[in-house]
């Protein structure tokens, strides 16, 4: 990967010197090329572990002789968090780097932009991390597949736990954009279905990254909720947690919170980790299944660091792609779609499958409670929630997808 980048820089320099800045194409070889795009400069805390994950998968497959008798080569690009840039890079990867398929992306809008590009140009796109439900349902298309459990699935996992709480009066705190809004809509709808007696008494919608912790926490306290549903993450989460701890909101009021158990967030909170929050996440140090132990050990040996959730996502996305290429025995888009639909493969979290009906993988997440051990945040009382249990039935999913996506 690094060598390749150096090669590219060298050839670009030669190209620029010759007055031809656009001819920076490296030598063609017979390797299978995969195009990868992600927000490396904008969201490095997630995407760098993610890159380490997929690099490990690529090294493993090449050490085992590659695919279809050819080595695998990844051409990776930074979208700088902009969907417009991602579309340009996708063009570059497909038309001048001649990649067989596209993968990657973290932000929902970047994922949707690349999915739309995939539909227009009839290229397969395996989305790694974007969470928006629209990617496989409302805006789904036949070229796009998605690995991570979606906003809907993770909300459904938490609703199962939330319904067990005695709480009747709920408050929500969510970032004011599509992700926050659809997470709250899913949560309300699913919880009301299980518990018709609940009511939602307060809603706080801070702008993403702009959470004003003291005002938000005070407004929530004033509404006297029995429980809280939290969707904030990133820089907003530690602000909210510390202010809530200082003002005695936590742990008095139980909280269910999306994603907060992922090491990417938990490692930041350290001893401030709010005890008792019910979260989705990844308790990396405590999983002892053979699949995970094998992944954990090779990852640790390779990088001398423990995997984050991003590492698992990167690794699993690429192993799925390799499996699909093996199954298709071809790089043709139609063959790959056929192979990916219903594809079963093994992830560090256990077996998973891309549903044929909506192209969503059944990879799940861990649901548990937060606690503090030795000054660090950990998940306790956790269980693996298999994504397959938290997806709508095939018939319902079909109804949510555009007609053409079903062909």
């Amino acid at each position, binding site marked *: 990967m690094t060598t390749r980048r150096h090669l590219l820089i060298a050839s670009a320099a030669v190209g620029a010197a010759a007055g031809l800045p656009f001819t920076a194409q490296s030598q063609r070889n017979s390797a299978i090329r995969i195009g990868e795009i992600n927000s490396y400069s904008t969201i490095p805390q997630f995407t760098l572990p993610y890159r380490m994950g997929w690099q490990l998968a690529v090294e493993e497959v090449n050490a085992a002789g590659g695919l279809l008798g050819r080595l695998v080569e990844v051409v990776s690009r930074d979208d700088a968090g902009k969907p417009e840039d991602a579309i340009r890079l996708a063009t570059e990867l497909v038309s001048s780097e001649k990649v067989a398929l596209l993968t990657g992306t973290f932000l*929902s809008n970047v994922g949707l932009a690349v999915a739309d590009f995939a539909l227009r140009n009839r290229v397969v796109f395996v989305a790694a991390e974007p969470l928006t439900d629209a990617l496989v349902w409302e805006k789904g298309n036949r070229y796009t597949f998605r690995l991570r459990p979606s906003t809907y699935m993770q909300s459904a996992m938490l609703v199962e736990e939330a319904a067990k709480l005695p709480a009747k009066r709920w408050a929500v705190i969510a970032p004011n954009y599509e992700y926050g809004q659809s997470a709250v809509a899913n949560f309300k709808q699913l919880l009301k279905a299980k518990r018709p007696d609940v009511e939602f008494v307060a809603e706080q919608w801070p702008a993403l990254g702009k959470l004003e912790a003291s005002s938000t926490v005070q407004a929530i306290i004033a509404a006297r909720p029995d429980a809280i549903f939290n969707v904030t993450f990133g820089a907003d989460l530690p602000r909210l947690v510390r202010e809530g701890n200082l003002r005695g909101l936590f742990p008095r009021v139980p909280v269910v919170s999306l994603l907060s158990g992922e090491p990417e967030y938990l490692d930041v909170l350290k001893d401030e980790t709010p005890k008792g929050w019910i979260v989705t996440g990844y308790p990396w140090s405590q999983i002892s299944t053979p699949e995970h132990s094998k992944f954990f050990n090779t990852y640790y040996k390779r990088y001398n660091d423990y995997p984050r959730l991003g590492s698992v996502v990167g690794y699993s996305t690429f192993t799925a792609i390799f499996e699909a290429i093996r199954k298709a025995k071809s790089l043709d888009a139609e063959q790959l779609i056929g192979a990916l639909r219903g594809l079963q493969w093994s992830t560090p979290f256990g077996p998973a499958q891309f549903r044929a009906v909506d192209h969503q993988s059944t990879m799940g997440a861990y649901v548990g409670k937060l606690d503090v051990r030795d000054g660090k945040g950990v998940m306790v009382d956790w269980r693996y929630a298999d994504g397959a249990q938290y997806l709508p039935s095939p018939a319902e999913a079909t109804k949510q997808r555009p007609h053409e996506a079903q062909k």
Partner: protein
Amino acid sequence: MDLIVGQLFAGLSYGSTLFLVSAGLTLIFGVTRVVNFAHGSLYMIGAYLAYTITTHWSATPINFFGGLLLAALLVAIVGALIEVVVLRRIYASPEIFQLLATFGVLLIVQDVTLALWGPNELFAPRAPGLRGSVDIAGALVPQYSLFVLLVGPLVYALLWWVINRTRWGVWVRAASQDRETAGALGLNEPWLFTSVFALGAFLAGLAGALQIPRETVNLQMDLAILIEAFVVVVVGGLGSVTGALWAALLIGMLHAFGNWWLPQSTLVLIFLVMSVVLIVRPYGLLGRPITPPVSRLQAHAPFVAPAPIWRAVGAVVLIAAIALPWLIGDYAIVIATEICIAALLAASLHFGMGLGGIVSFGHAAFFGLGAYTVALAIKYIDAPFAMALLMAPIMAGAAALLVGRVVLRSHGVYAAMLTLAFAQILWSTAIQWVDFTGGDNGVLGLWSVLPKVLSSAAAYYIAVLTIVVASLVMLRKMALAPFGFSLRAARDSELRAEAIGIDTHRIRWLAFSVGGAFAGLAGALSAFHKGSVFPTTLSIPVSVDALLMVLIGGVQTLVGPVIGAVAYHVLSTELTRLTDHWRLFLGLAIVLLVVAFPEGIAGFARRRFAKVR
């Protein structure tokens, strides 16, 4: 009651932090006239340094608060270095170039910070000695918030004393009122500028350091605080420390109570309030009219018809551009299409800025409005291609007419900030009104309405090239018509222009609207080119890119924006493609360009080849 008290303290505490950042920014502006885009970076460095220092030492109150001070002092040194190494070389250039240079510094700092501290967010422990909360009228207020609340007024009092009661303060006041006279009376300007910059940096660093017990230290905090600080400085009046104090309290209160009453609209609220303040008081709460207006780009020689050789060069370039699809691959065609669109965007900004002296920090508003007009026309009324394309410049032009009415009552940086406010209001609406705009997820599938003949990359490129060249020719004709000359007259000497019967306000207003309409057209072309539209088309980076292209190319020539668009687009896309550290290289390139070519590439070429006429 306890809720109101609680919110009051929250607002005051946040206002105090905002004041520290803004006081530095406004001081630097008052004395050096530099709009410091790197101010948020200094704040961020302060936070990172404070984290490293305080977590390295044992957690005693003396170590902790001493560590915060030490961090701020180190940031002061960084600020002084920036002034000496970069800014000192370009004080003679138009002020807008100093802005560009500080933007380059911002990019460099982002990458260097990532390299030094790594990608993870850092969360410092609570402040030793101030870990708990106190009960005030029934509301639990964190002790540390109270402490921060007190720092702001304390710093204000110190600043007031220094500025009004010391010799250095006399120099500062003299330089901010009349730099030339002060210089003529023997004031040591370089030393004063460096010391003011260091003080401003110290305050920014202190504000950043003070934040670490409250929130994580992360790589996004520079831009987040920068925008808010700009708002505060402009609302308070540029250069006025007292104004900054009042404005910071106002914005802090708005955050606290706005969050409570209208939790969904805080983003819009701040910019709305800023607009209202500037409409009522065009120079902010306590600002004074700045003479000459801040943004005034120096008067320059009238346009001369290009020598035949340059016409020939232009013709060759055009023929080459038309022949391009037969010479290069699909990706290069996509880049060429983007360059054409970027050139139109830059030229549309240049029309108001270069000719009329109206600097805009929010040109993305019109670009994005054009893109969203196309997207929403297709989504809601099934508009065909030609109709959607036509509607975009009309909508954007109409919006520019409306906004221009308000914006142009102010001058210079104030007007620029009003355009930014308008763009940010549109951006927030696009993100937060999910039902109408599709929110962050954007509007997809616009490519499906492209006529069949335009569906290939090459055909669409030729269409874009035709439209862009026609637009550039129109802009050029207008610039060289009496309209353009009146516009330049209004820019160079408003009084004399008025005296010979030019309605300067009206002519600026028209120019602003023409620029807006063409930016809308560029946005529409981009929407069809990308096939989807997202709120990012309305975001600050688009405005900054447009500004960079104009400045890099050169403000004083008509061909400048086109050259700037080519240079900047190729540079930035190639860098992001080739390296993770594109921000470092782009920032360095910008700083070097500004230092080496203060007139832009085209201006430099014209002077260099002046003999080839």
